């Protein structure tokens, strides 16, 4: 049912919801599986583990050097390689990291980073609860946002740690 609903939403307001591949989701992101283009055998294996369209995945941890990644579905943690996860399409659930959202108006909800990172946010004058506008940008590049009328460029790595919600 959920699956149908998502498809519907995608059809109705194209461009509003962003569908990305699972490997692009930074740590701590939650997302809903939309579909997968994996080989049948592997897909059915994942289905047995609860990886079905409409189910929620949490991105738990990336290994040193960024690959593989541990994902949580239901209460099972499994590790998948980027080679495989890039075939799985997902839709991030808000609050989502700034790096995966498309252009639009958002509210900053929380920071998932250490002290240095929070210091950095302070110096950029980005605060929790603040409203920001994300401008069009290319995938994997710096993200151009307008906060308090100021134009700020936020690096991709940093954007992974800023969790926002749709305004």
């Amino acid at each position, binding site marked *: 049912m959920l699956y149908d609903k998502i498809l519907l939403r995608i059809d109705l307001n194209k461009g509003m919801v962003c569908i990305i591949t699972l490997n692009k989701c930074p740590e701590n992101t939650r997302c809903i599986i939309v579909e997968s283009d994996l080989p049948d055998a592997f897909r059915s294996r994942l*289905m047995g583990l609860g990886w079905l369209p409409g189910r929620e995945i949490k991105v738990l941890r990336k290994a040193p050097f960024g690959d593989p990644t541990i994902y949580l579905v239901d209460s099972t943690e499994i590790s998948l390689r980027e080679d495989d996860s890039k075939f799985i399409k997902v839709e991030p659930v808000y609050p989502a990291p700034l790096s995966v959202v498309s252009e639009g108006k958002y509210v900053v909800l929380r920071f998932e980073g250490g002290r240095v990172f929070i210091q950095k946010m302070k110096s950029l004058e980005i605060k929790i609860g603040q409203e920001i506008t994300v401008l069009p940008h290319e995938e994997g590049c710096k993200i151009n946002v307008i906060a308090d009328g100021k134009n700020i460029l936020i690096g991709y790595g940093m954007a992974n740690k800023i969790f926002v919600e749709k305004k």
Partner: protein
Amino acid sequence: MKEITIALIGNPNVGKTSFFNALTGSHQYVANWPGVTVEKKTGSFKWNDYNVKVVDLPGIYTLNARSIDERIARDFLINERPDLVFNIVDGTNLKRNLYLTIQVIETGVKTVLILNQMDEVKNLDIKIDTRELSKRLGIPVIETIATKGVDIDSIMKSALSDSSRQIRYEIYPKELEDLFSSISRDIQNHDELKKFPPRWLAISLIEGDDFAKSIVRDHFAVPQEKDASLKIAKARYDFIDSVVKQVEQRPKEIWTITDALDHVFTHKILGIPIFISIMWMIFEFTFSISAPFSDLLSKGFDDLGSYAHLIPGWAGSLVGDGLISGVGSVLTFVPLIFFLFFSMGILEDSGYMSRAAFLIDRLMHRFRLSGRAFIPLLLGFGCNASAIMTTRTLEGEKERLISILINPFTTCSARLPIYAVISAAFFGAFGGFAIFSIYMISIVVALSMAIIFNFLLKNKETTPLIIEMPRYKTPTAKGLAIYTWSRGKHFLKKAGGIILGATVVVWLLSNLPFNAPIQDSLAAQIGKTIAPIFKPLGFDWHVTLALIFGGIAKEVTVTTLGTFANGNLEEFLGTILNPVSAYALMLFALLYIPCVATQATMKMETGSYKWPVFSVIWSLSLAYAVAFLFEKIAYLVI
């Protein structure tokens, strides 16, 4: 007496083997990572007037099996039709486990759900309404804690009580059910297909399962429904969701100990340094803690040896040189090997194995191996033969073959006595370092061989990798004792059997003809005939013979030299080797031919003699080349 067969089926790492051990009183291999059991294990017990045969099987997530171990479990369920299935379920992971339960019930076999790990369920504050679960699924549900023993009587009673209130629950939407019944009708039309469970066969056909398709291939064509497998899986999960919602109460996400530990152990920066330190600690711990015990044993054998030589004639020589100096030289390392297995037991039962595989995956990927292939490699440091068995969980055929072929290059515990004896004799304070360097070389060689074999076998397939991360556990004293003993026992058995036998043969050879000096003995003649081949490596006929006999079991290399040594092995080695050729011997012993048991396992796992023969030739040439080059370079440098 009535005979019944019970199969244990369940997801990997839920406690099937622990349950099997509890039922049958056996001590099968249990560890905290998925994929430990890779073959069918049978045991039995008596209950009232039943003779119950229990079959422990490899873990599976679904009946759509792919790898060899999964196929073993599925084939047993489908082809052998056990009288009863105990479906072992991890109570902390009900949703995922019930998927298999549904599939098992669909095969029409009488199923009992064993809700295991109830202690963990309590710890995590999860509440499960067992009675409701039983009612919903229409099968008996029994709560257990397999590691703390089980109440056989009550389990058997509820399992055999005729609660066959086959309730029909609707899992699938009507259009699918219609499809199933139409295929079931096709199936009924063929007598050859009658022996298969019709509902399972029908559903699996629609799912597009290869095994099911191969069963009916000669009989009729299956209509292909687009996305049917997805619909089926979704229907199952919707059903499971509705059941679990009714029977389970789970606290909102909590920060568990496992999360906290993972934060450290799989940390992006600290993870790999921690991994390396753990490996180093195991090495250090094993050697330093076992050293005093080994010294004690060594002294004991020396004293025994000198007593034995008091026995006049050949008997004194056989006992003194052959048994005590020979076999004793290996028995000295019993503590070392037991402590090594003890450390490996901690590693395996704590849950760290999967994390290590996860951390190291990136590196393995470079060598076109999956992180999963790392586990057999690590286990190879214990014993190659049993490690090769665990490659059954690898899906890709070529990847599996490569993993089998590179495994003997990881230096197993049987080779430890060789290194230990040589380093003690030649490298003194640097002995530990010398041995550690061999371990490092062992890893480097194994991985380089992976590249070469990948190239030779034209391995292009990269098989998808899924590793499940189990919860961390504190290994129990009892579990560790059982683990260490059951693995170490193997070493003792070998010492009392094949090693003893080979040593007696060596003693005979070196004492025939009677009363001849050893230089003229049969052993010397054989050794000297072959020795020229090893001349370039600086090995004399003693070493040559030791290496040849070492092919039977690596420890025999040491016992053979011990037999020649007349009691003082270190001194004797000093007369036939120098530090350079001694290190070359360590290299050679590391690389040359897999032992007989490993060769046999290779044959069994690849199904042909080709690969063990290849492996012998390949590793022999490699060992020769490496030892030769090492000496050439070493003499240049020194």
